[in-house]
């Protein structure tokens, strides 16, 4: 009598790599192509990889709970909507304050990403990165100014790096949101 294996990320990933669950692997490959735009999408995926609809949905639920899948949504191509100003704002925050400032920035609606990263001294003292998107540069800078004023961040050294254009924009199998 086999005991049930506790569901952990490790076992789930092993399951998914297991020969017996090649159907789950197939499901993941299908999902990487995106979700079918049909009324009954999980059923379509289930038929394609030889699972029941309920199994597909349980799998999706698990992958979301385990953090394998962050979100089931859509990604907007900013530039197609005229959102051409993309600023990476980098901050040199004292280590003891970085968590607080990170949470503060992340709560701002203008901020689409907020990560702590290592400093690379002496050339690169910045340890907190956030992205702000907007239609025009002046609008992005005004939003940043509001954020600085509202939260009293004027004393924290920061720089704004605007992007010029992407040399390479892969569709990407993963949600490479680091620079979007």
């Amino acid at each position, binding site marked *: 009598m086999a005991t049930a294996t506790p569901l952990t*990320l490790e076992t789930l*990933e092993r399951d998914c790599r297991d020969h017996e669950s090649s159907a789950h692997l197939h499901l993941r490959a299908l*999902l*990487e*192509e*995106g*979700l079918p*735009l049909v*009324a*009954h999408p*999980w059923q379509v995926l289930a038929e394609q990889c030889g699972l029941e609809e309920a199994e597909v*949905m349980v799998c999706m639920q698990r*992958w979301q709970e*385990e953090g*394998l*899948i*962050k*979100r*089931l*949504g*859509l*990604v*907007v*191509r900013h*530039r*197609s*909507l005229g959102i051409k100003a*993309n600023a*990476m704002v980098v901050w040199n925050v004292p280590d003891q304050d970085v*968590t607080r400032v*990170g*949470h503060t*920035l*992340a709560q701002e*609606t203008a*901020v*689409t990403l*907020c*990560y*702590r*990263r*290592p400093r690379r001294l002496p*050339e690169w003292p910045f340890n907190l*990165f956030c992205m702000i998107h907007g239609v025009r540069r002046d609008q992005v800078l005004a939003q940043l100014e509001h954020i600085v004023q509202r939260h009293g961040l004027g004393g924290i050294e920061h*720089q704004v*790096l*605007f*992007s*010029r*254009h*992407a*040399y*390479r924009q*892969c*569709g990407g199998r*993963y*949600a*490479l*949101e680091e*620079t979007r």
Partner: protein
Amino acid sequence: MNTLELDVEDRAIINRLQDGLPLAPYPYVLVAAELGLSEEELLERLARLRDSGVLTRFGPMYHAERLGGGLTLAALAVPEADYERVAGILDAFPEVAHNYRREHRLNMWFVLATESAERIPEVVAELETATGLRVFNMPKEREFHVRLHLPV
């Protein structure tokens, strides 16, 4: 690329679905009801937005690290005269996923995405050899969760 004209319904759909689709057998009918549209109209509009390039992706956003892969943000300080040449060198690496020019001394920013975490330092070393430049490797230490939502 031309800026596309979106109508009120398109904007409502994009704003709603950036928060994700419900995990239900008929998810679109639920979202359509929220937005006061028919399911058919919602699907037609989504297909149009996808085909016209407004949406780059529709479906699950994976955590690359959780899939056992490596992911990092890296930068180079490239002399202006060498910029195109170095961009071409990076282009030959399948692990380089996005490459942006930014206005700073560190002017080339890109993401490295590899099948395994161990591969990241190897690719960094290969890039340094290929370009003769120091790679500033700045992996994510902590993510502060934002509501990934761009009002359109």
